């Protein structure tokens, strides 16, 4: 665990910044004392499905149960908790629906979904989701969503994953900053670093990224870090899209 996590979170919360602290929750239960519940702090727990699916996805048996324990402990102490889930080709719509039920029964505030990153030259091709398969999976998984399911993300992004919108990537939409600097061009493609955000924005050849650029690394990507930003921009960029978002939010029908 990052040794400075406590002062980092405290400083951000003191500035009234909303923090989604992503974690696999393996150490969450025993480290909860280091944190103070706040409306600005949410634990975003990495959960890739039901027990068997999650443990396989993270290459370690028992992690699902540890994460569930961590979620219960955090909720019990008044923390805000959400989940984040990455889906690959072996995801079953039916099992994912059971997973949504289980997470909502646990009491999490919302769930976030994304297909995993797909790259035409990646070695593990059989498990990557391609666009058509992504549309099929999300359409089946999110058909007639239960009223109790709460998704902590843009409804238009979910509809994009279901094939109801055609978006391109906004690679700077969720910038990644780490000890090396500002990662370019995005969270998924690691093609170097800029020392400042301004340098990232001004010196990255953005026209070389995104599906329509023809970059083969971007061809099949539908990951939330680039496309959710596009969906949000669309939501607030047109009355029609804003109306669509409002209808989906009010009716719960994706």
């Amino acid at each position: 665990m990052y040794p400075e996590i406590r002062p980092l979170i405290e400083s951000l919360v003191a500035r009234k910044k909303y923090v989604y602290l992503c974690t696999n929750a393996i150490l969450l239960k025993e480290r909860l004392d280091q944190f103070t519940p706040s409306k600005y702090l949410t634990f975003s727990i990495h959960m890739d499905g039901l027990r068997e699916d999650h443990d396989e996805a993270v290459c370690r048996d028992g992690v699902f149960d540890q994460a569930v324990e961590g979620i219960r402990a955090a909720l019990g102490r008044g923390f805000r908790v959400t989940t984040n889930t990455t889906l690959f080709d072996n995801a079953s719509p039916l099992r994912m629906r059971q997973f949504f039920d289980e997470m909502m029964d646990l009491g999490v505030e919302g769930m976030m979904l994304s297909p995993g990153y797909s790259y035409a030259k990646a070695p593990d091709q059989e498990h990557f989701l391609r666009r058509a398969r992504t549309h099929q999976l999300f359409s089946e998984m999110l058909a007639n969503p239960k009223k109790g399911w709460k998704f902590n993300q843009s409804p238009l992004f979910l509809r994009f994953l279901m094939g109801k919108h055609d978006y391109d990537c906004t690679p700077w939409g969720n910038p990644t900053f780490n000890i090396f600097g500002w990662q370019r061009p995005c969270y998924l493609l690691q093609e170097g670093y800029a020392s400042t955000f301004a340098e990232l924005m001004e010196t990255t050849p953005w026209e070389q990224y995104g599906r329509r650029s023809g970059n083969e690394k971007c061809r099949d990507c539908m990951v939330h870090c680039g496309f959710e930003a596009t969906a949000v921009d669309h939501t607030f960029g047109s009355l029609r899209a804003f109306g669509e978002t409002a209808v989906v939010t009010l009716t719960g029908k994706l």
Partner: protein
Amino acid sequence: MEGWVPKIGEPLTLTEVIDLAFDYRGNTTIVKADGTEIVGYVFDRNRLVSEPFIQYFDEKGDGPFALRYTEIANIKFTGKDTAAGNSWKAWVERREREKSETARAASGEPRPDPDCR
């Protein structure tokens, strides 16, 4: 790639070796043009500028430091590759092997001799 000492020349260029070092998940030894060596983690390279350079942290964790391509003679892959054997595929294969060994032990079947042909 762990332990590899590239031979720069035809067909492998220094630029290609630097790209490989950038992707490598472990420390490398940067051999400078003057013959001195630096052990560190190469986390960035930029060849789109007029004077291409790499950035690295040294083995004590100090940095980042920058070094121009023209100052580099070679990069040796001397550190442990922390990504090796940690892929999802490797884990599934390991788990399947353990499962079949457990099942075999439970059934009393002897472990197959790999030298037996």
